[in-house]
């Protein structure tokens, strides 16, 4: 945890936006009680691109759902702007991996105005329309305003979901592997677009992924979680890396560091085995 003591790049604001403090999350399946995360703690500051990274089964998605308010911690506390998180609300908007997160009975524009009107950001239709159009333009879907979601490609659907999330101007945008179901080319393009949007408005985002590369490109700070139950292994800086750094020594080094951290146990196991 030595590295987490270093301040994040740039001027760090006095108070963190989101505080997660010794949080243990559990959920029940039909036969088991599963501990998803164990005493996880971290702090997200305004304008962070904070990535939760770990192998599948490390509880990173569960942790995000906890922050969103769908799940109550059995131990520890989560606070947004100092107020404890108790239920889902429009101050923390989720963007999911699934393509069915758009309401199929509403057009692209209506999906955004639906969020704005019900989430309490707008009270009149005209204002909501204007904001929706502005964000549709930001994700380059101008021509598809009045299209129903089933006519869009996967990448376009994710763009609408992101536009909807950003239009709400939440305190923090929660993204649960939003690009995992896309093809490699589209994923790369979406990562770049997300970074461009961030350059534009410097929103705060909490981003879950299982891809080390994606974490290094998208994130400004990376929380590495161990598998089953998720515990904090490290908190690293990655604000200096983008797509054009992929070949660089810096990038490779960070990737290797994270890789070794995540798979250290497995390497030890292999060495111990007689065939190793």
């Amino acid at each position, binding site marked *: 945890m030595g590295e987490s003591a270093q301040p994040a790049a740039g001027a760090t604001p006095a108070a963190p936006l989101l505080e997660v403090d010794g949080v243990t999350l559990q959920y029940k399946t039909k036969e088991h009680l599963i501990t998803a995360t164990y005493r996880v703690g971290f702090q997200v500051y305004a304008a962070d691109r904070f990535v939760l990274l770990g192998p599948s089964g490390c509880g990173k998605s569960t942790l995000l759902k906890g922050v969103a308010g*769908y799940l109550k911690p059995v131990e520890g506390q989560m606070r947004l702007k100092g107020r404890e998180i108790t239920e889902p609300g*429009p101050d923390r908007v989720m963007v999911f991996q*699934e393509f*069915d*997160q758009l*309401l199929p*009975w509403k057009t692209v524009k209506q999906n955004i105005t639906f969020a704005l009107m*019900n*989430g309490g950001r707008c009270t009149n239709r005209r204002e909501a329309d204007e904001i929706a159009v502005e964000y549709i333009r930001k994700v380059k879907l101008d021509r598809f305003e009045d299209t129903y*979601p089933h006519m869009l490609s996967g990448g376009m659907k994710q763009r609408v979901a992101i536009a909807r999330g950003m239009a709400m101007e939440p305190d923090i945008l929660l993204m649960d592997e939003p690009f995992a179901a896309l093809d490699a080319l589209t994923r790369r393009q979406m990562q770049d677009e997300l970074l461009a949007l961030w350059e534009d408005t410097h929103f705060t985002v909490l981003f879950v992924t299982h891809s080390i590369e994606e974490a290094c490109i998208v994130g400004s700070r990376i929380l590495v979680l161990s598998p089953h139950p998720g515990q904090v292994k490290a908190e690293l800086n990655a604000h200096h890396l983008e797509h054009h750094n992929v070949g660089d020594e810096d990038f490779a080094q960070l990737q290797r560091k994270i890789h070794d951290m995540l798979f250290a146990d497995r390497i030890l196991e292999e060495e111990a085995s007689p065939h190793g």
Partner: protein
Amino acid sequence: MRPEIFVETLEKVDTADVERPLSWIERAWNVNGVRKATILIGLMVLWQAYTVIGDIEPLMFPSFGAAAQALYQSLFHSDLLEKIWFSLSVLLIGYAIGLGLAAALVMWATSSRIGGDFLATCTAMFNPLPAIALLPLAMLWFGLGVASIVFVTIHSVLWAVSLSTHNGFRSVSETLRMIGRNYGLRGIPYVTKVLLPAALPSILTGMKVGWAFAWRTLIGAELVFGASSGSGGLGWFIFENSQNLETAHVFAGLFTVILIGIAVENLVFRNIELKTVYRWGMQR
């Protein structure tokens, strides 16, 4: 080592079939109504040919022409229209009450576990029970009038519609539910703005099945005692004519039942589906 290949300029695509308008026959065949009308006309021709060529006794099986003529005659020179109206009004009352009760029941079933159990148990018990089997009891309780017919019609609508609506609610994806709650929707707005439209395909299916059940039950019930209420409906029309050995008129009555069924399916339900679930890509 094989050489690498690069194509500098692509050959000009020179075939008419890159994008060719379909011929009018192909286009007409793509229209739903055209295909179905063709099937209907085929069946009519078969029927007419069978009765004429086979020289069938009209008392047993009248030709299509005779049946159509009887239908025309009853519609415009007799009281068939009145009977249709009578049947339809009873049907609509029963259908509407059935839908209302189903809505209330499903609300309860979605909001509490005991409600869900109640719905599951009741549909398991009553859905397989033919409405006609309840008719003797209904006559005992409500007398030989419209009330009894409405009662059995409600019974035939209620369980079918509740079952599929409840199934529709339960199969709404977890993601959509979470989205609804994320934007601050709770309680009734959550149900009407998220669950209801998301479950619409199942709800419409339930309404269609409910309509068919109600229609059958109604005709069956009227066959049993339409006359007692003074002005019987379609079922009574069929029964009366079969008693008088007016077989062509019996067919005319059956035609009416079929035609109304087709009209409701194709004009009402089909249009609702085209404007909603098809347009939204929730059903193909």
